[in-house]
C-alpha cells in the first residue's frame, strides 16, 4: 500500500490515463501538483497564459484524437480557462481541465485567488467536479477522462482544493465507473438503419451532410466508403473539412454562410439530407424555415438532444458515427445485393453544372495587393497539402477553409462553434506537440494574432517549431466586411493600423524567425523560405488587401436561396 499526497495521486492518476503532456501555468493553489510532476514522465509545457494552455490542449486533442490536458491555478487561472472550455464544449473536443482551488476551509470566504470555478465552469463543460475527499482523486480522474472521450466528447473540469492536494491517501487504482446516469448510445437502432437505407436508396437528389462528429468518431474512411457505395454527394461543414477528400468526385465542399454555391444549393434542392454528426447550426442553415425545404431528413448523432433541436428528422438515429456507418454499410450491401446504387444521373449532372458555373472566385492582380486565397493556394501547392492547418476566426479562416483542398481528417483545426479569435497560435502549438512529425501551419489574421501571439514564446522556448502566416490586412476584416455590407460603410473600431506592430521584429523578439511578403511576387519565395526553416517557429507576415471580402456569402438569418457570390450581386 502506497501512501501518496493528493497531488502525487493526481499525477499518478494522469499517468494511469496515458497522459503524455500537460499544458499549464502554475500558481498558489495548484502548486502542490507542480512538485510530483517533476518526477513524472509526463511533459509539462509552460504556457504564457491559461487561455493559451487551454487552446493548446484543444489543438492537441484535435490533431491526435487523444484527450488534451490543461491545468491551472485557482481564481484567475481558472477564469482564464473559461474561453477554451466553452470553445471545446461547442466543438465537442475531449479536454480535461484541472484547476487548483483555495483550501476547503476557505471556500466561500472570498479568499485570495478564490473563484467559484465549479459554478463558473458548469455551463461550459460536459461535466465538472469539486473534489472534497482526497481518496476520490483516482476515480474522479478516471471518470473525467471517460466522460471527456466517450459519447459526444467534450471538456470536463476537476477542481482540486489545495488542502486536498496536500492531504495523504492510500493509492488505489480507479475502480468501476459509477455513472448510473451516463449511458451514451453506440449502435443505432437496427430498424431505423434499415428504414434509412430504404429512404436513401429511393432518393433522387440526396446529400450527405457531414459534420464534425464524423471526424471526432474517427469515421472518415467509413464515411467515404458509404458515400461511394450509396452514390451520395457530400458536403463537409466547417468542422468536417477533410472527412471526405475535397478532390473526391462526390465532394461538394463546405455548406453554410461562406460555403460553395454548389454545397449550399444542393442542400436547398435535395429531396433527402443524410446528416451525420452535424447539428443544423445556424451558420449552415441560414434561416431555418427556408433551409432545405424539399428534403426529408435522416439525422444520425451520438447526442440525442441534437436530433429534433432545429429540424425534426423523418428518421432519427442515435449512435456513434463510426458504429452507425458500419451498420449503414452492411445494410446497404444487403439492400443492393449484386446491384449498384442508383446512378442519379440527372442530379449529378446538375451538381456538375453548378460546380462548373459557380466556382470559388478570386482574382490575384500580379501588381495589386496580396489576396489571401492566393497565399492559401500557394502554400497548398508547395506542401502538396500535406500539413495540419490551423486557423483563428474571421476572413482568413473562411478563405482557408474554402481554398485549402483538404484530403485527410484531423488536418483542419479551427474554432467553429464559439468563433474564438486568437485560437490559432496556441492550438497550433498543441497540434505540433501531438504530431511532431507533421508540418503544422497556422493561418491567422492580424487581429487574431494580436490576441494570443505570446504563446509563440512558449513555442520557441519549448522548441515546438510551428509556422504562422499572419494575413495582415490591418483590420478586423470580417467585422469590416459586415460594416461595409450592412452598416453603410460606416467603419467603426476595425482599423488595426498598417505599421504597428512590426511583425518581423516582433517574431524575432519572441524567439521566432520573422519573414514578410509585401507584393504578390514575394508570396511563393517567402513561403519557400518559411518551409525551409525547421529549427524554430516561423512567423510570415503577408501584407494583404485590406478591402477584400469573403464570398460566397449568405447574410446572417437570410435564406440559403440567396447566395451572394460577389459584390456585384448586391447591386
Amino acid at each position: 500500500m502506497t501512501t501518496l499526497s493528493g497531488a502525487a495521486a493526481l499525477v499518478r492518476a494522469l499517468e494511469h490515463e496515458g497522459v503524455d503532456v500537460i499544458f499549464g501555468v502554475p500558481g498558489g493553489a495548484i502548486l502542490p501538483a507542480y512538485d510530483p510532476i517533476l518526477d513524472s514522465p509526463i511533459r509539462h509545457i509552460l504556457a504564457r497564459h491559461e487561455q493559451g494552455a487551454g487552446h493548446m490542449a484543444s489543438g492537441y486533442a484535435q490533431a491526435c484524437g487523444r484527450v488534451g490536458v490543461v491545468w491551472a491555478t485557482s481564481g484567475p487561472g481558472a477564469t482564464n480557462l473559461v474561453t477554451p472550455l466553452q470553445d471545446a464544449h461547442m466543438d465537442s473536443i475531449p479536454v480535461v481541465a484541472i484547476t487548483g482551488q483555495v483550501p476547503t476551509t476557505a471556500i466561500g470566504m472570498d479568499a485570495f485567488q478564490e473563484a467559484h470555478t465549479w459554478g463558473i465552469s458548469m455551463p461550459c463543460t460536459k461535466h465538472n467536479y469539486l473534489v472534497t475527499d482526497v481518496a476520490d482523486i483516482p476515480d474522479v480522474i478516471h471518470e473525467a477522462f471517460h466522460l471527456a472521450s466517450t459519447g459526444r466528447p467534450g471538456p470536463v473540469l476537476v477542481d482540486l482544493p489545495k488542502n486536498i492536494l496536500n492531504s495523504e491517501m492510500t493509492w488505489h487504482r480507479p475502480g468501476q465507473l459509477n455513472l448510473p446516469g451516463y449511458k451514451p448510445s453506440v449502435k443505432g437502432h437496427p430498424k431505423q438503419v434499415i428504414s434509412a437505407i430504404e429512404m436513401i436508396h429511393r432518393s433522387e437528389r440526396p446529400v450527405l451532410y457531414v459534420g464534425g462528429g464524423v471526424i471526432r468518431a474517427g469515421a472518415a474512411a467509413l464515411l467515404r466508403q458509404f458515400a461511394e457505395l450509396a452514390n451520395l454527394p457530400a458536403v463537409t461543414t466547417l468542422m468536417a473539412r477533410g472527412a471526405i477528400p475535397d478532390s473526391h468526385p462526390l465532394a461538394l465542399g463546405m455548406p453554410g454562410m461562406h460555403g460553395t454555391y454548389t454545397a449550399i444549393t444542393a442542400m436547398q434542392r435535395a429531396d433527402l439530407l443524410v446528416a451525420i454528426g452535424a447539428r443544423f447550426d445556424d451558420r449552415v442553415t441560414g434561416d431555418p424555415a427556408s433551409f432545405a425545404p424539399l428534403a426529408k431528413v435522416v439525422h444520425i448523432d451520438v447526442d440525442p438532444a441534437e436530433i429534433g433541436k432545429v429540424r425534426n428528422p423523418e428518421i432519427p438515429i442515435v449512435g456513434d458515427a463510426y458504429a452507425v456507418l458500419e451498420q449503414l454499410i452492411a445494410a446497404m450491401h444487403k439492400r443492393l445485393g449484386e446491384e449498384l446504387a442508383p446512378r442519379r444521373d440527372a442530379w449529378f449532372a446538375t451538381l456538375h453544372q453548378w460546380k462548373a458555373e459557380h466556382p470559388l472566385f478570386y482574382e490575384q492582380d500580379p501588381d495589386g495587393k496580396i489576396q489571401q486565397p492566393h497565399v492559401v493556394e500557394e502554400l497548398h501547392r508547395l506542401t502538396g497539402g500535406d500539413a495540419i492547418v490551423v486557423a483563428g476566426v474571421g476572413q482568413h479562416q473562411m478563405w482557408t477553409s474554402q481554398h485549402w483542398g483538404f484530403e485527410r481528417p484531423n488536418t483542419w483545426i479551427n474554432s467553429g462553434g464559439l468563433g474564438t479569435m486568437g485560437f490559432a497560435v496556441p492550438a497550433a502549438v498543441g497540434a505540433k506537440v501531438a504530431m511532431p512529425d507533421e508540418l503544422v501551419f497556422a493561418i491567422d489574421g492580424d487581429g487574431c494574432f494580436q490576441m494570443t501571439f505570446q504563446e509563440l514564446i512558449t513555442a520557441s522556448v519549448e522548441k515546438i517549431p510551428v509556422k504562422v502566416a499572419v494575413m495582415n490586412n490591418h483590420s478586423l476584416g470580417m467585422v469590416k466586411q459586415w460594416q461595409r455590407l450592412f452598416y453603410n460603410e460606416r467603419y467603426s473600431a476595425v482599423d488595426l493600423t498598417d505599421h504597428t506592430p512590426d511583425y518581423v521584429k516582433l517574431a524575432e523578439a519572441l524567439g521566432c524567425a520573422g519573414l514578410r511578403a509585401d507584393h504578390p511576387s514575394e508570396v511563393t519565395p517567402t513561403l519557400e523560405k518559411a518551409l525551409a526553416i525547421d529549427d524554430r517557429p516561423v512567423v510570415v507576415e503577408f501584407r494583404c488587401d485590406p478591402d477584400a471580402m469573403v464570398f460566397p456569402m449568405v447574410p446572417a438569418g437570410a435564406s440559403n436561396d440567396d447566395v451572394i457570390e460577389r459584390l456585384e450581386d448586391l447591386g
Partner: protein
Amino acid sequence: MNHVISVLTENKPGVLARVSSMFARRGFNIHSLAVGPTSDPAVSRMTVVVDGPEMEQIIKQLYKLVHVVKVMELSGADRIEREIMMVRVNAEPKRRHEVLDAARIFGADPVDLGVNTVTFELSGAPHRLSDFLELMRPYGIVDLVKSGRIALAKDPKTKEAARAALRSA
C-alpha cells in the same frame, strides 16, 4: 400549457444547480420545482412543472446531465399530484366566521390566528388550491406560500387490471 416532469437524480452536491442552470441557459421556463429524497438515499427526485412546447428538448437536455438518471413526463391522466400552501387572509373579527366556514368546506386548516387575519394550510390537487384562493381573494390575501407541485405516476398495474377486467366482462 403546463407539463409535469419527474426527474430522478443521483443525490450529489450541486445537482439542483445543474438542473436549474440548464433550464436557465436553454431558455426553458420553470413554473415550479420541488426537490426531495426518495426511498433510495442515493437518489433524489425533482418534480418540475414547466411551461412551453419544447418538452422533448427539455427531457433530452436533462438526460445530458451526467447526474440525471431518469426523466418521466407525467401526463394529466396518469399522475397523482399534490401541492401544499399556506395563505394568510384578512379576517376582521366580524367576518371571521364567514371566512372559517368557507375554509371548512375546502378542508383548509386554520394554523394561525391574528388580530385581523387567519392563516390556512391547504394541501391537495393544484386546482383545489386555486379554487380556494379564488374564494379567499375577496377578503384580501395578505400572504401566500406554495410548495410547488409534487407528483407520482399512477400505479400502471391498476390500469392494466382495469383493462383486463373490461376484457373479461
